[in-house]
């Protein structure tokens, strides 16, 4: 009985998915959007975007550990551009923190810091920058301009002289040429997917209502979860097609690499697609007409684009904005996709973000199912 009930459930779910695919393939405008929107956006965003930030999560590796090196770190803090989150003695630890995206800037103070300051040939400090994030490269250049006061003799800052900026070396990790497209394209996967996925599904339930199909649908034994998941499935496929399209165009037009594994990339994208679709379905249960659904979808899109770290680095935003950003799937996906595509992170490195996306999906789907009553009132 239980298995036959499950088989019936699966059959209804499949029937809904197949119907959705059929309708979609006959709707030329929507079909065109599937391919047109990503192409348009990647070309549009692929060129020209510039940013400015503060409070970058930073890891400090102070090998000198002298009063002068501590002084230098204090001065760096005072600029407010960086926020020292971690201090470490090991290079491996610094690499790990950077790869996991927990720190975007690394400050390496060599053992012979003092001696280097005196010498004119070697840089005294090395700044390591996560080049996969937009605008951080520019920040690093700013840090390099930080004047370093060097004490001579007794008394604080007595007779201090400014250190030449070139004594700080900036090394950009993951995106050595500092090309914006390399930073933008991975994030663009998330932006395009959340735009199309939320838009498509936000209309899914409303459309049935508007066209009068819902009245028949709710008179049948079709379950609410069967309807929701069945509606969602075809768009998962569409999302993966769009992802592939962006990767190909990104590689062909902007030489954007995929450093990490493709499997990790698609697995993470799959989770993100599902989360976005969940959000779309939730919107669909709020709206009474397709027009309302469209507007609501747009309302969810703006914070996604502005707060997710796509436009401005997460660390530079006010705390309240960060709270909102935490609720957006795109925020977490941006961390994942930059990690996987540019820093060669594997799924194991980004599981907290994956977990948050999964929770988001379950919550959204749960609310959508709970809100959708098989009734007209």
């Amino acid at each position, binding site marked *: 009985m239980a298995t036959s009930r499950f088989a*019936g459930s699966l*059959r*209804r779910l*499949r*029937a809904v998915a*197949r*119907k959705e695919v*059929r*309708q979609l393939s*006959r*709707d030329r405008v929507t079909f065109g959007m599937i391919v047109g929107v990503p192409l348009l956006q990647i070309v549009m965003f692929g060129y020209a975007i510039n940013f400015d930030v503060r409070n970058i999560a930073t890891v400090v590796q102070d090998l000198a550990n002298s009063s002068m090196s501590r002084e230098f770190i204090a001065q760096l803090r005072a600029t407010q551009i960086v926020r020292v989150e971690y201090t470490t003695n090991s290079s491996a630890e610094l690499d790990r923190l950077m790869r996991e995206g927990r720190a975007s800037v690394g400050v390496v103070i060599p053992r012979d810091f003092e001696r280097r300051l005196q010498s004119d040939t070697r840089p005294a400090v090395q700044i390591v920058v996560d080049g996969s994030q937009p605008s951080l490269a520019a920040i690093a250049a700013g840090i390099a301009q930080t004047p370093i006061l060097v004490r001579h003799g007794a008394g604080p800052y007595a007779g201090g002289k400014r250190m030449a900026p070139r004594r700080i070396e900036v090394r950009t990790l993951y995106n050595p040429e500092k090309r914006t497209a390399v930073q933008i394209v991975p994030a663009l996967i998330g932006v395009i997917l959340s735009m199309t996925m939320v838009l498509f599904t936000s209309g899914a339930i409303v459309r049935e209502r508007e*066209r*009068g*199909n819902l*009245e*028949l*649908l*709710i*008179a*049948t*034994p*079709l379950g609410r979860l069967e309807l929701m998941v069945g509606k969602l499935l075809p768009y998962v496929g569409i999302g993966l097609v769009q992802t592939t399209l962006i990767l190909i165009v990104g590689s062909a037009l902007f030489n954007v690499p995929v450093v990490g594994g493709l499997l990790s990339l698609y697995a993470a994208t799959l989770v993100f697609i599902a989360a976005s679709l969940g959000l779309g379905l939730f919107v669909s249960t709020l709206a009474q007409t397709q027009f309302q659904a469209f507007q609501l979808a747009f309302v969810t899109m703006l914070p996604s684009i502005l707060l997710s770290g796509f436009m401005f680095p997460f660390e530079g935003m006010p705390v309240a904005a960060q709270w909102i950003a935490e609720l957006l799937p795109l925020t977490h996906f941006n961390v994942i996709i930059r990690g996987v595509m540019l820093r060669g992170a594997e799924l194991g490195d980004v599981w907290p973000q994956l977990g948050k996306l999964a929770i988001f999906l379950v919550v959204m789907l749960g609310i959508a199912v709970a809100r959708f009553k*098989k*009734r*007209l*009132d």
Partner: protein
Amino acid sequence: MSGAAVSSGIAITARQLTRKFGDKVAVDHIDLDIPSGRIYGFLGPNGSGKSTTLRMLCGMLLPSDGHAEVFGLSVVKDAEAIRRRLGYMPQKFSLWEDLTTDENLQFIADLYGLEGDVGARIAQARATYDLESLRRQRAGTMSGGQKQRLALAAATLHAPELLLLDEPTSAVDPQSRRDFWERLFELAEAGATILVSTHYMDEAERCHGLAIIADGRVVAEGTPRALMESVDADIFEIEGADGSEAPRVIRELPWVHGVTQLGIRLRVLADRSTKDAAEQLRALLARHGIDARIERTDASLEDVFVVSTRREKRGD
């Protein structure tokens, strides 16, 4: 269809069934006992509460008050169980216009989990409802009659014991309506209970049982014949008074329920309590210089409708 065995039973009962939308009372404390295996009609004008009642019976609107049972199951608590045994055809065409006949029927078959040779059942439905030539045609491109045949085929595909049809023939030509009713009688013959709402008198007259609904209330109930025989009015047909004056002066009589012009004849509904109604009419017309021929005749369903809805208004 297993309905034949219980054709003497009651398929639907409703007690004090009520539905309000805000301040507006759409269905006002309705009582119903609808026998199984019969065609039962809801006759009433638009906005009288027919659709709302049907929607409550298939569980998609909650009653504001009162309760109803279908096959002894509560329409509130057991809605899912009822849905499996019920076919519903909404007033508006509700299949998918961008899907073909076969695709629509296959989808419905999957939703109801039809077992066995589904292809054969769909083929059977196509044959019964004359859809063979429309197999690969999208529903959106069909005529009103074709859509309606497809909708009925879909609503009956899972052989439901109860069929709820909400004004099924409102967008259909007369020949299609005749064919449609033939199918309904076949279904009832096979044991299905059919509840159909309509505002056509000729359709209502074909039902086994009938409830006349006005302003959310059942104002008359019974077989069409019993309703016509027990109408609380005498019906007169007047010939030779087809000007505009005669209907006007007749309407002014306090015991006249209604005057309808039918070509050259006038149809007058007079209160039963009035003695010598024919003589009084003749005298009235004579005073206005009209020499008319007056004849008593049998009540039609329309007369029943006019009288019962009028009495309802007076009661308010």
